């Protein structure tokens, strides 16, 4: 049984690894169509990544192994998450872990990438990382509230017993899921919240000093992170069932991503202070939702 679950986990991880860049390719196509462009092939992100993987990495006056290693550590953390989150198969590494671990592993991978960004010493990278850290601190607050809501509704922190949270249909859960959707969107670092690597002012932000393979891995892990966050959202919605996961899950995954892309295409970039304020407002709303949950709705 353990081995079967491990196998499930590995297969899920492979699925996420492969489908992450593919989703990005689809998104690029959709975005292009919304902007009256033809757009690249949906495999374009994969082509880009393969091209980057073939290139030599660059070190920019940074003697630290850490500068490069942090990228891969961040990547490895995402791999761990993908091993135990049910995605295409409804099972994983025996669900070794709970909600909090999931959040921590995801944010740890980001912490490593940002440590890498800071260690380059480039002011652009520092500012970009600072923005990322600030925004993820703020959204962590909302995430924590959502976890609290889930724990409250399901009286458990175990992933396999909280999925799907929709089994408890309360108004608070529904609003909470909506807010989780927004937070997922923000954590995807999409416009208007794509401020860590804001190309016009920061020229790539925390990724600025990376090149070649390292950059490839950063881009890859960004797509994986997006896929994982969305997977988590879907897992909370659909039943933990073979059919649902094999059929409904991919459909939902792609459609959520497409909706997100459409929203992204319609937005400009916000400033860090404004976006932090938005997230803060969201946390206030979420307090209300928790209150609602506490009084039994």
């Amino acid at each position: 049984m353990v081995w079967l679950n491990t196998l499930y986990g590995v297969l899920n991880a492979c699925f996420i690894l492969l489908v992450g860049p593919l989703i990005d390719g689809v998104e690029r196509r959709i975005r292009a169509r919304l902007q009256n462009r033809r757009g690249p092939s949906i495999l374009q992100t994969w082509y880009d990544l393969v091209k980057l993987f073939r290139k030599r990495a660059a070190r920019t006056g940074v003697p630290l192994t850490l500068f490069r290693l942090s990228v891969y550590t961040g990547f490895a953390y995402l791999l761990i998450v993908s091993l135990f989150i049910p995605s295409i198969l409804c099972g994983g590494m025996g669900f070794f872990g709970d909600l909090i671990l999931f959040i921590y592993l995801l944010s740890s991978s980001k912490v490593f990438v940002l440590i890498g960004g800071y260690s380059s010493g480039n002011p652009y990278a520092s500012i970009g990382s600072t923005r990322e850290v600030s925004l993820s601190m703020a959204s962590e607050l909302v995430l924590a509230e959502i976890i609290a809501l889930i724990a409250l509704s399901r009286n458990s922190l175990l992933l396999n017993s909280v999925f799907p949270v929709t089994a408890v249909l309360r108004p608070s859960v529904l609003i909470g899921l909506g807010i989780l959707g927004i937070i997922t969107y923000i954590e995807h670092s999409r416009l208007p919240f794509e401020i860590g690597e804001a190309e016009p002012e920061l020229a790539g932000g925390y990724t600025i000093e990376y090149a070649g393979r390292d950059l490839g891995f950063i881009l890859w892990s960004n797509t994986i992170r997006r896929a994982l966050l969305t997977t988590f959202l879907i897992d909370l919605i659909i039943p933990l069932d073979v059919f649902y996961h094999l059929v409904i899950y991919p459909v939902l995954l792609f459609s959520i991503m497409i909706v997100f892309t459409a929203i992204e295409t319609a937005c400009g970039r916000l400033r860090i202070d404004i976006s932090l304020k938005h997230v803060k407002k969201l946390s206030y709303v979420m307090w209300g939702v928790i209150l609602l949950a506490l009084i039994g709705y």
Partner: protein
Amino acid sequence: MRPRNKCELMTNLRRFGEPRLRGKYLFISRIKSGRLKDLVDYLHWRLGGYYSTSIGVDERPLDGYFHVYHVFVLEKYGVYVLVDLPANPGHPVVESITPIVPAANWAEREIMDFIGIKFRAHPEPHRLILPDDWPDNVYPLRKDFPYDEKLPTSDKIAKLVRESPSDTWIAEDSEDHTAIPVGPYHPALHEPEYFELFVEGEKIVDARYKGFMVHRGIEKIAESRLTYNQVPFIAERICGICGFTHSTAYCQAVEEAARIDVPERAEYIRSILLEIERIHSHFLWMGVAFHLLGYDTGFMIMWRLRESIMDLAEKLTGSRKMYGANIVGGIRDKWDIKEEKVALINDTLGKIREEYLKYVPKIISMEEIKKRTRGVGILSRSDARKYSVLGPHARASGINTDVRRYRPYAAYKYVDVEIPVEDDGDIYARIIIRHEEIIASIDLIHRLLDNIPRTHLHADTDYIPERRYGIGCTEAPRGEDLHFVITGKDNKLYRWRPRAPTYNNLLSVPTMLRGEHLADAPIIIASIDPCFSCTDHIVVVDLRSGRRRPLRTGGLVGGR
């Protein structure tokens, strides 16, 4: 008490020196000693005129002196005031006017670099345009400096940032702040320039600017090698966005100097092409602005619309951007706008207008756009006057100025031009100004096309007299383009100085940047619609080897 007419003005000006009125030009020479500052103060701050630019001329072969002309524009009296300051060739020093009019800062430094006239009491007498490893006492725009001179290579690698503070405003501990280099290669800037922003957190504490990285020495080539009718094509290549307005301004300057009457039809065609250029430029700017605000869909939309304008231009002139229509005295024959083209223009513009109005009002009502532009990058009216900013940039700060209306040229004499003015002085105001100008320009073209007369296309220009002064002004999309010419022998110019509006507008950028958020820096810089290739109009320094390649005419091709 402001003088009511030119006569009174002349009387008043006698207090300062000897005014001479020649057509539109009011020369003030022999300034009484110590009265220069009063004169400048009177012209710029009290008479309601504004400082336009300064020109240094090596007139030693003509009258034995170097000359500095400060050009002030008195829109009310319809004259250009040229404050003539001769400088002794042995000891070329004149008094600086920068302390009174900060806008004169760069122009005076440029003269110091190129002609070698020193300005007494200039607040920051450092090099502006010439690279740091340029030898001292070599002044490229003097007449004894051959245009194809090759200087010996220098071992010193040019430093892009000078150590000396460029501005007294810099906080004392600016060393402690993080320097964010923006440029010369930065994705937000599409041309080579260099801003150094000092930040505390993400707040910009101070900013420095270093430009003129691609100075191309166009003036020297034009004065040395080109004939009158070759220059328009080079002038057009000063800029890749508003090239036509440069060639028009040049042609007008020569036409002024030689007193050539341009046929009306040519004037109409010039105006039409100028307006097409303006629309194209504003579309481009809006696209860039949306891109810098992170709204790439808006960028794509604007540039798609711009594409149709470019196609129209291509159908009319054979080129998307380099119209190549101007010659001294009018328009080239093949560039005539015939009946079927009139229809074509009307049709295309109608469609563009319709589509444009479908999009842009919606886009500029978006929350992100509003939040990031309202109250951001404010330039107050007094600061705008201080730096003599021009064009939409000035109009967004509440200064009602437009060459097309107040000093009409080409066909603007025959039609009414609508000029939007906003008072807020922020980026949003600049967007609104340009938005309204696009619509006004489309309407203007329709009107111009309705009235286009049937005359010749160009006047006879066989003889152009020597040592005549001419100023050609056009309202470029970014503001007033000013070309100053002195005619010379052998079908060649004696002196030509183009001054692009960005030259004045850029000086105001550090003021706007201070206290703003780093994320807004690109849009603030872009909000003046800077055109650095216009501004940086000799040498290309290879930074790695520190070797300098003297520029040959081949390098002129290109632009933005």
